[in-house]
């Protein structure tokens, strides 16, 4: 979370480029689409390998569940 950042660049012609950094999974698109609703029309989008990575929260939840298999303690 500490490394998550959004970089917004507004060109002299008024074109807006929104770059999300350090945000894994589809959440980066949620953030970018928020700006699309604020600003106007989306012209193009490019997804990087970080988008396809699972976030750390999802990975940790999978490993916690199967420790106790039954029987008297």
């Amino acid at each position, binding site marked *: 979370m500490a490394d998550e950042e959004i*970089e917004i660049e507004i060109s002299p012609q008024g074109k807006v480029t929104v770059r999300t950094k350090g945000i894994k999974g589809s959440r980066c698109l949620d953030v970018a689409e928020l700006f699309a609703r604020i600003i*106007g029309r*989306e012209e193009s989008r490019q997804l990087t390998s970080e988008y396809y990575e699972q976030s750390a929260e999802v990975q940790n939840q999978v490993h916690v569940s199967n420790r106790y298999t039954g029987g008297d303690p």
Partner: protein
Amino acid sequence: MSSVIVLAPLIIGGWPVITAAVTAAIGTMGFSIATAGANDQRSHAANRAEIEVEESEIIPNQSGIEQTLVVERNGIRATFSRDARGALKVCMEGVGVSKAELKRVGEELLGGVTQQYAYHRIVSELKERNMTIVDEEVQADRSVKIRVRNF
């Protein structure tokens, strides 16, 4: 980097919003607001070029009176107004200036206005959502870069 999205601003607002964007843009572009009555006699020798911002919608004021804003620089005059469809348009005029040059200057001016509109829209929204603006910078090519955290 996770994603890169490119957006084209849709300018929507009342005349005060347009005036604010124009006023903010002209400062760095060498234009100034034309004083009322000064040089109002239009020369028949002046060339004219009109540019409409298609992706715009100016909300009319309740009085129904159409408003204009005139700025000028070195004999070139730019009149901002709302056209019949409600879009923003600028009429460029200049004596001894070609139509092509007027169009070029007009597009540069509109680019600056669009930039200022987008900047203020974005910053207002960031503040409303309590997002943290870490840094703002005007680059050498006059683009504005804003870094945001806590979203």
